[in-house]
């Protein structure tokens, strides 16, 4: 009876992979997954640090990006145009979401929890809209470039995986340039670091909030279109994707962009390697187990400094 609790699925393909080869394969998969999480995680860190809102709906921008790219591609647009259009659409919807709900909510002095609930609600709305527009089917996009998988250090890697890692790396570099070299990027950072200080410098922090949401929508949509050729897109793929990005971002303390990327890659690797030990169905349990453990571990030091410190450390 008890042995049956863990019904291991039968191993796929070549069952007798060498350990080393298996390991490098798992690592390659982990990095690819982690790169996608990183795009969503960066978006979350961006909006959290500028507006203090945890955007549960971020995954929906990935969903809508992916599904609208499929529709545009099927309507006969060139793939590149469809992809770009999807990213722009993700930015637009995220910006509108901020303008219609988050910003008015903050103006009315809504608490962080209310705003979190609002983003949950928006997640529901967008998921429902995706369901109505695209139904429950899975959709596919062609790989961005055709061709045989490549072998790197014994791991078989699809060309799309290279696209995922490559595009994520480019985006990270572009973001680095934006935040460290441009006045607008610095202004965005400033409004994340200190709202009062930024307003005193004449920086319109609420317009920065809009910009942050739009950027995060674009990042998530990019993530959505990147994985579609490999994993197919469905109307309900967003939430978990967004939450995984959140786990990675929390590992990066929701404030540092490099740490967010590192956290997301770590999560991707952890999930992928745990698949070597546990049935793949437990992947999500691993991710959220890690999240809860990290959150609690981080809450401990404040407790030692007294209840006031613990309460204030939260904000």
């Amino acid at each position: 009876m008890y042995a049956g609790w863990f019904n291991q699925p039968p191993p796929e393909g070549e069952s007798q992979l060498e350990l080393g080869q298996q390991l490098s394969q798992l690592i390659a998969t982990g990095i690819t997954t982690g790169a996608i999480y990183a795009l969503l995680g960066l978006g979350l860190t961006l909006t959290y640090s500028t507006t203090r809102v945890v955007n549960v709906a971020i995954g929906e921008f990935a969903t809508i990006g992916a599904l609208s790219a499929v529709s545009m591609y099927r309507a006969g647009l060139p793939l590149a145009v469809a992809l770009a259009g999807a990213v722009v659409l993700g930015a637009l919807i995220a910006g509108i979401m901020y303008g219609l709900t988050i910003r008015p909510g903050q103006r009315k002095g809504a608490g962080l929890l209310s705003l979190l609930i609002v983003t949950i609600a928006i997640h529901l709305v967008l998921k429902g809209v995706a369901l109505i527009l695209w139904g429950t089917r899975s959709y596919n996009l062609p790989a961005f470039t055709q061709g045989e998988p490549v072998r790197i250090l014994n791991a078989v890697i699809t060309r799309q995986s290279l696209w995922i890692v490559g595009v994520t790396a480019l985006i990270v570099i572009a973001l680095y340039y934006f935040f460290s070299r441009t006045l607008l990027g610095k202004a965005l950072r400033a409004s994340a670091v200190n709202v009062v200080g930024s307003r005193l410098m004449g920086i319109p922090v609420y317009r920065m909030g809009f910009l942050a949401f739009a950027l995060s929508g674009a990042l998530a949509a990019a993530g959505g279109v990147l994985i579609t050729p490999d994993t197919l897109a469905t109307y309900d793929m967003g939430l978990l994707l967004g939450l995984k990005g959140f786990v990675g971002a929390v590992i990066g303390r929701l404030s540092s962009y490099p740490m967010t990327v590192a956290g997301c890659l770590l999560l991707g690797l952890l999930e992928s390697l745990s698949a070597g030990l546990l049935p793949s169905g437990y992947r999500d349990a691993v991710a959220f187990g890690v999240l809860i453990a990290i959150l609690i571990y981080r809450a401990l030091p404040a407790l030692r400094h007294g209840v006031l410190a613990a309460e204030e450390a939260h904000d």
Partner: protein
Amino acid sequence: MTKYLRYLIALALVAGWAAVPYLLPGRLSIFVTILIYAPIVIGLSMLAGYAGQASLGQAAFFGTGAYVNGVLVSQYGANPWMAGIVAIAASGLLAYIVGGPVLMLRGHYLVIATLGFNIIVEVFAKQLRGLTGGNSGLPGITSLELGAYEGDVFYYYAAGLLTIAAVLLSRNLIQSRFGRALQAIETSETAAATLSIRSAHYKNLVFVWSALLAGAAGVLYSGWVSFISPSTFGLSFSVVLLTMAVVGGIASIPGALLGTALLELLREELKNAPGWLGGGSPESEIVVFGVLLVLIVMFAPEGLWPKLSKLVPALPPTGGERSSEPGELVFDRGDESSAVLTTGGLTRRFGGLIAVKNVDLEAGPGRILAVIGPNGAGKTTLLNLMSGVLTPTAGHIGVAGRSVAGTPAHRIASRGVARSWQTPRLFSLLNVLNNVKVGVHRHGRAGLVRCALTLARSEEQRIEAQALAALDLVGILDKADNRVTSLSFGAQRLVELARALASGPRLLLLDEPASGLTSTERDQLVALIKRVRSEGVAVVLVEHNVDLVMNLADEILVLHHGEVLARGTPNEIKANPSVIAAYLGKAGDRNPAAPVARSGDPLLSVERLNSGYGPIRVLHDVSMQVHSGEVVAVLGRNGAGKTTLMKAITGFIKCKGRVRLNEVVITGRAPEVVTALGLSLVPERRQLLESMTVRDHLELGAYPRRKSASRAGIFADIDRCYELFPILREKDREIARSLSGGQQQMLAIARALMARPKMLLLDEPLLGLAPRVVEDILDTITQLRGEGIGVVVVEQNVGAVLPVVDRAYVLENGRVVLSDSAAVLMGSTELEAAFLGRDLSGGNGVQPGIAASERKEG
């Protein structure tokens, strides 16, 4: 009378409930669903609404109840009744185990963690296929039945009874010692802890309570439908539950019922909705739910029930039927001769800053120890250490002979230490009487079970009598049934005082109890504190109002930069010159600038400005003018409204009146717009961008000019800033956090100058700076004046700042009480009185400048 009306309404409801199976047999299943969900939503309302611990994991406990019951019955053939009880217990146990660690988290981290927990439980339901049947579900769960009652009818009555039990028991809890503790935690765990409430314990128990209700609902659900699958208990159902609670009103039991019924009926209706609404499709309701949730949170954040119940004025709130009379307050008394509180070498560091350093003090029974000192001296931190809400970095604290350093605040409170807060921390869900009853918490014993079953009536009466006695003592017995949010600021202070006194403490810590009080209220306060002293209570009083301190204190301790500067009787302190210097600062070697006659339109004109925070009005008809090239000081002691004035001028808080800059009205404009219009504020505590470099600050300082100015022009301005403050050039690439206090102040000024302001406001620019840096900043102010910029300086260090200003306004209690040229003010006893109180400054008119020079000679 209203009591009978209540019973009648309840009776009608129950009769209506019992009749449904006969009246609407065809639609029974929707009622069963509502009554199964209602207890879960009630539990969530207790957890998220009353205790403030929002959870997105309630579906997991619903699922635990359902699955444990289902597995026991269908896989192991257990007796369905026994299986049900085991399943409910399992849900509670799971909540107890998970709650301990998870409830250490707060706010959205708690939401996300419970959400993660829900996903983990769902994963296990899917993966333990041998037990649960995995994704394909678990069929064949035997239904419960009782005699002739079976199927829908049985489950209708069973779920109804569960809901009734949930309503009654939860209501009992809310009105009990247990529930008051929850509602205290909702507002502030810190304030709750100082009333001896161990929040971890209560949070965990209410979590268990919500899980027991959800588990019981799960047992009924699994028996009723006899088939369960993981998707029913997933995250999306947790979201539905939270929606129900929020729509009805998160902190309301009737609201939970209303929200559940409304949304379930809506779900039912949506199934028959037209296709373009997504009608008939499995998750069609989610769009509607989502939109509804957004609308509720945005437009009726308290939910529907609080709005509805306002429309029905027939039922006054309960509490009018009080059985107890005010009792007698008994204060903890120990050995009359020994100290109640002692500290030794008490020290607290925040990063690099030492807020409290090596403080030794002793507070004896029936004595008042006052702690005074200028802004930022560490007085509040000292109280926080003594009440245990902050843990000391080093040193010893003893309460009634026992060491308590490092002991959690709730345990220190239970040793008879009570306190008040600088801004009252009242529990907004509780009325005045219940707030004060929380004060008596430490004298109660009743736990969850006794409270739920109202078995602790005599204890409750004792608590009530004691709370009423405290209200009586403070003189606000007539306000017992008021909501605390409707009270004036002064009344809120008194409620908090009553709450602190209700436990009969041996040590009372008061943090600025007189600030914000009217003079009548202040007299009441003085009488009250004297009364408390006569009861043998030790009082530690932090207060800015020096008159009041001199009048009350048996001993005074003066803190300066976290250290004890002086101690002694009021008379000794009055005669101590270093105390006066600490308050007023010392004059430098500067000669006052010759006053220049100003004419023409002022650059900045403030006209009859009124402002404040919520119901508290801080500024009363403040008017002032500043011309270009003029330096004007705004002086006044702590709490006089100086910083509030700066915030109101720059648009950070709402205000009435008019502010004009160069004839342009800027009242009501956003701070960033005000900056762009040419008025820059260098705020108190500087508000730098800690993790960004010096150069980033200066580049961003020019943000309002980004379209008009050339890059070269901005670089030239940065160069000018570096000439003004050469040290900043060396620190060009360093981040703000790594700078010293003086360098940070320079950066804050330089950053403001980058916007090329016509008018510059400096709020406490000298606070905490070394003398040499003070000179630098003062030089800069003089230089800016020469460049035709209008400058306003808010300062406590009067001696230092008066020589560099043309004129000064003195604020007292939010009003301009004095305004004159600097030269006139420098010799004025009026000014000193405004700072130190009439008492300390006395009639002998010690001039700050003279006091300083005398010290130099001596």
